[in-house]
């Protein structure tokens, strides 16, 4: 009998035979969405350079994706990605990392590159906790949740990452959860095609850390919670902040055309040659 091989296996580094994800982790769903998007666009994985930072989500492309992959240090993958895009403007540059990496320690690079509208795609896996280090609170942890660094409950407000990136100036922003893998795949396809800074926020369950700490004891329960709390952005018209307090607004929040930085730099080169200073 012929061995059954997953149709996306061709995108995975041959030497990789297992993942480091915990049982029930949402990383696998996000991974599939990314690879399906590339597959459905009939692109080659070598059309991409992947960049990641530090944390569980950063291990999605590294070492799994069978392409050029730069696994950088904590918080800085978008800054590395910018340099890569400058050197290889014809390649698709995709950052895959977590909320702690991209929004806490790396928040400055996130907003500034959204502002620059650099043509890169950022997939932010938002599990609302520091998973790899054992369940510490982050800037996305909801108020009141007990974590290892907030044992009496988190006392901070949390970021709405997608709104942050939208306000900073990104061309494309979409938010989905691991309960919306097909929608997520579609949005990732759009994000890849978008000329400009495109951002996908993927709510993703971490049953081992966030689940235990928040009292939701398993990925099924957590994903069920995503389903119940999600509301499509199209259906939020007329709803107040209070109405949306515990809801997850999903969908494509921004999809606009605006000048992209790498193309703008090309124009300055023309000016510099014509009128050097």
């Amino acid at each position: 009998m012929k061995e059954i091989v997953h149709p996306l296996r061709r995108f995975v580094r041959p030497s990789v035979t297992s993942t480091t994800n915990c049982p029930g982790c949402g990383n696998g769903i996000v991974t599939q969405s990314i690879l399906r998007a590339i597959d459905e666009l009939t692109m080659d994985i070598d059309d991409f350079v992947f960049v990641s930072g530090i944390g569980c989500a950063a291990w999605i492309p590294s070492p799994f994706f069978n392409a050029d992959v730069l696994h950088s240090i904590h918080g800085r993958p978008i800054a590395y990605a910018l340099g890569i895009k400058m050197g290889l403007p014809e390649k698709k540059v995709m950052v895959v990392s977590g909320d702690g990496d991209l929004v806490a320690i790396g928040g400055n690079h996130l907003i500034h590159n959204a502002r620059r509208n650099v043509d890169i795609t950022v997939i932010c896996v938002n599990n609302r906790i520091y998973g790899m280090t054992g369940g510490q609170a982050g800037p996305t942890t909801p108020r009141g949740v007990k974590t290892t660094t907030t044992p009496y409950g988190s006392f901070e407000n949390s970021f709405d990452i997608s709104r942050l990136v939208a306000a900073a100036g990104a061309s494309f922003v979409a938010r989905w959860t691991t309960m919306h893998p097909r929608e997520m795949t579609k949005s990732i396809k759009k994000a890849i095609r978008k000329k400009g800074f495109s951002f996908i926020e993927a709510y993703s369950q971490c049953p081992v850390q966030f689940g235990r700490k928040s009292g939701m004891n398993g990925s099924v329960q957590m994903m069920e919670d995503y389903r119940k709390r999600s509301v499509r952005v199209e259906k939020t018209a007329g709803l107040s902040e209070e109405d949306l307090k515990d809801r997850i607004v999903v969908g494509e929040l921004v999809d606009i055309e605006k000048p992209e930085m790498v193309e703008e730099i090309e124009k300055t080169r023309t000016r510099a040659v014509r009128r050097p200073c």
Partner: protein
Amino acid sequence: MSSERVRAGRYFMMGNEACAEGALAAGCEFAAGYPITPATEIANRLAARLPQVGGAFLQMEDEISSIAAIIGASWTGKKVMTATSGPGISLMSENIGFAVGVETPCVIVNVQRGAPTTGMPTVGVQGDMVQAKHGSHGDYEIIALCPSSPQEMFDYTITAFNYAEKYRTPVFILSDAFVGHMREEVTIPEAETIERVYRKIPSQGTDPQKIKGFLDEDVAPMPIFGRGFKAHVTSSCHDEAGKRNLIDVSSLDLFVRRLSNKILKHKEDITIVDGNYAKGDVVLVSYGPVARAAAAAAKDAREAGFPAGTLRMATVWPFPEHEIEKMARKAKHVIVLENNLGQMYPYIKAAAARFTDVSFLAPRLIGQIHDPEEIVRKIKEVIQ
């Protein structure tokens, strides 16, 4: 090389501008930085010049992203640099370790200023000498060059690019506010007379599964992005193929030793020192602009009948202990001159003290270059 890249001729030029021109002459294609006194003129010049030759300068949100962006661009095969001062280097430190760990060619210019902390931005000191070597965590070797003049800002920037490419490593230019802001004659030679080194890259079509692109003490070819090498580049402990290994301590041992040995093994090639001394001399050991005061003092002392010589370290890292030892065997006494409280002094003393007496002389005021008269007095003092 186009004439636009190398503007051959004789100029009256600021050290920082000469540095930027040196970068262009060396083939720099991308630079990123953040404004900081006293290094900003390098960024200004690169911002004007790089787009003229198809390159780009990006002003980033901070120094962390500046070095991250150039490391990223280096992985696409570009020659890259950044320029800053001490506070910027402090911010860059973690990423400098990354560049060392994944063997990324890049040039980092530190135009040193009064420190610690915000300090005194327009005054030159040599306060970041050891930071360049030990600023990032862990054991590693670095290359650092110390120019003494605007001409050397030009020349050593080219050397720095060549070393970076040859050894796949970050290379520091350790200048300071005095040399950076000094204006002197700078000669830019004809493009074809300038030696330029380019990193080795695996040949096109090399099987990605067979590429060993890391941890070779004789420098592995760099599997740059965009050529289908499917490079897995991780700063975590890895093997020659880039494969992460976070369990096996013998793998960590190789990771640490090979990266260090890559530089140490080629120390002779990297070391640039100017020795001008004879047996029985009091030898003045210095680097950077202090070497100019040392040369003047040695001349004055000799004219006054006191045997004095100089040893100027242009390469400070890897530390040229062999050249220091060789000098110390001949010297009657070694005086170390630095515009700081003695940063290289312990290293020099460790190499020289077996053979002769070694003493240290700071300038009367930190932030000033030594007055040659002070140095001559010290020479007389150690002789008598």
